[in-house]
């Protein structure tokens, strides 16, 4: 049983979507995804719907109550995963592989512009006994500690971070939904937020919704002539106790990648993968994630980055979209943002500078203080 992507749709990717409620954003993204999947009818053709969201982001307790109607799922099998959208893709992948479902719709939406106390909400994710009493003033400080540990261990300098930021803005300038892309933006002149992270190292938040239609190989041709196959999907959680996790390397991303590569029968990712979309909500994270995904030896991503290997047109382009640094972070939509861009590149909808578009690897992480990564391998 093979699982494929039959359609994708997105809406928003604006710093503040003022004219649409989150439910209207879900509806618009769903409508576009269903149109992309050959005019699929959610009331007739879909077996189950999965929504990826978190209560505190929504400002609603039991926010899954609001999942069914905008995607056409009322009185059907709908549930919520409290995780990144890519984890919903992983669940849909399992559901279809079980044989019980043929068509599963994945949805995620985010409206960070509605949140007044975003930093406080982020810190509510820390352990209430061991970390929260420290009263960390800025959640990005946790990422800065990780950055310091990684940079110290592997000799990464601020010039290397500069290269990541520059690449993201250049690539993002060609991505119409990358609202934060600003080629020529100087990292060194942006203010320090939490040393070593400067403002330019930290992705901004963005309002967005993405919907993806997945289907079994048995029925997918009913909806698309150009399926993009999900040949591997795996995730891993490193540890809940922040104080005990590996500060210098994202072990969770390595474990998730190894699981997904094993399913997709990829033995040498650096050679077999054509391009990658990975989490870069902090500039140093792109280097870490490239290494965790075995696209570069551990500690070597900085030099390969400097050589242009991961640039558009390079040996293995990473974040042709510009990633989160250029598009922004739409909370749990982030993984689906990476995935939907990659699908468009693989189908040729987006003319990107990449030689090999047959195999792509997609990665998501949920930001501090979480230690969960999801990795998906796509093939045309």
């Amino acid at each position, binding site marked *: 049983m093979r699982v494929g992507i039959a359609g994708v749709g997105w809406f928003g990717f604006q710093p503040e979507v003022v004219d649409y409620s989150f439910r209207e954003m879900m509806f618009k993204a769903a409508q576009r995804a269903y149109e992309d999947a050959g005019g699929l009818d959610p009331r007739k053709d879909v077996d189950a719907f999965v929504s990826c969201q978190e*209560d505190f982001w929504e400002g609603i307790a*039991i926010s899954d*109550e609001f999942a069914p109607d905008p995607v056409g799922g009322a009185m059907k099998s709908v549930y919520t*995963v409290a995780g990144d959208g890519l984890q919903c893709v992983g*669940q849909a992948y*399992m559901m279809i592989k079980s044989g019980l479902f043929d*068509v599963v719709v994945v949805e995620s939406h985010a409206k960070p512009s509605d949140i007044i106390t975003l930093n406080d909400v982020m810190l509510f994710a820390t352990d209430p006994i061991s970390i929260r009493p420290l009263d960390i003033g800025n959640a990005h400080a946790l990422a800065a500690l990780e950055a310091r540990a990684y940079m110290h261990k592997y000799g990464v300098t601020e010039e290397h971070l500069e290269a990541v930021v520059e690449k993201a803005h250049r690539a993002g300038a060609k991505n119409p939904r990358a609202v934060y892309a600003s080629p020529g933006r100087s990292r060194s002149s942006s203010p320090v937020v939490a040393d070593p992270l400067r403002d330019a190292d930290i992705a901004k938040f963005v309002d967005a919704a993405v919907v993806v239609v997945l289907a079994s190989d048995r029925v997918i041709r009913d909806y698309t002539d150009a399926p993009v196959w999900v040949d591997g999907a795996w995730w891993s959680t*490193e*540890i*809940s106790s922040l104080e005990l996790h590996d500060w210098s390397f994202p072990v969770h991303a390595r474990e998730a990648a190894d699981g997904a590569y094993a399913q997709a029968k990829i033995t040498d990712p650096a050679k077999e993968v054509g391009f990658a979309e990975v989490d870069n909500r902090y500039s140093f994270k792109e280097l870490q994630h490239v290494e965790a995904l075995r696209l570069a030896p551990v500690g070597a991503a900085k030099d390969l980055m400097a050589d242009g290997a991961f640039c558009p047109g390079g040996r293995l382009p990473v974040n042709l979209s510009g990633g989160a640094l250029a598009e922004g972070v739409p909370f749990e939509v982030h993984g689906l943002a990476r995935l939907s861009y990659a699908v468009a590149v693989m189908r040729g909808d987006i003319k990107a500078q990449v030689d090999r578009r047959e195999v792509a690897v997609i990665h998501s992480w949920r930001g501090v203080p979480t230690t969960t990564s999801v990795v998906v391998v796509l093939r045309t």
Partner: protein
Amino acid sequence: MTSRNLNFKHRVAVVGAGLTLFRSRLQETPQELAWLAARQALDEAGLTLKDIDCVVIGSAPDTFDGVHMKGEYLAEGAGGIHKPTVRVFVGGATGVFVPIAAWWHVASGLCKRVLAVAEEKMSHAAKPHPQYVFRYIWDPIVEKPLNPNLIWIFAMEMHRYMYKCNVKKEDIALVSVKNKRNACGHPSAQLCMPNITVDDVLKSEVLVWPVQLYDISPTSDGAAAVVLASEEEARRITDTPVWIKGIGWTLDTTHWTNRDLAFPEYVRRAAEMAYRMAGIDNPRKQIDVAEPYDPFDYKELHHMEGLGLARKCEAPVLTREGVTQRDGDLPINPSGGLLGVGNPIAAAGLMKVAEIFWQLRGEAGARQVKKPVYTGLAQAWGDLMQAGTVIVMGI
């Protein structure tokens, strides 16, 4: 709906279950509660964490435990570190949904042994009462400004059911009496009341008429866990696996004001999905024991009818005739249910799955139903009177 292939490659069994005490205030942290239940389930299956491939966590609103991204936080306690761990969520219906999601982890062939853990710690929540969390479950524009209370809308539902089916409070109180008495056989129970009478229920404090104190389950802290395994693994682990024969769930529209409050159509559809998969066409005859969701006494009746275990408006009659007693023809909530054992939301739903597991294995001790049982069902309910989750298990 496209056609469904019901010939699964991988059969899935439950091979162990665990449960903490259910109490109004436990000293353990949410992580510790999750681990207590998880370890008990592993011990019962004769496994250790090393044997577990994947973990599925269920927990209701983050506001109860007071932690954002509660799944990440609970991962360690639920044994989910360095493993694929996911948290699923369908409000109050989450408890029964956890093994449903765990089912496809195994049925997909991607995991062989899965730990499914549900936890809730309500005593952490807003003061003076966890009920305050429910202030934030409404449509933020249309409903929230009215500051509704959750018991209000269930009072409306109870009233509607009583009116439509011509049911008296005395008949509904029988459910509470049965379940709070049944709970006396349960080592985790919070509200064992061996001598409770219908009169006690009718004289208890009025919360929102017609809902009185003993019509409603308590707020609780607790955790539950089950271990699922593929057929090959299950045969290796135990001589008495309990098979998951059917899964089903449905989410109705968010707009609860437009719902038929007298009959839970979404539960009927969820049951239909599970029955189709399990090959059940006459649930009243083919289900031997059931644990429908009973956060309120009228909900047990409501859900029995939604599940097709009674015809519309027939559940109160079956209850009065003693059919639903532990020694009756169709034992309903032999555990004591949420009314008796307690209601740590997600954990309470999974407690019901654990109860069916123990009943089918003949390991329910003082709670073991009298008749021989081969097929059982657990069901939960949640969101804005909106979600139904159903699991059918058999030996």
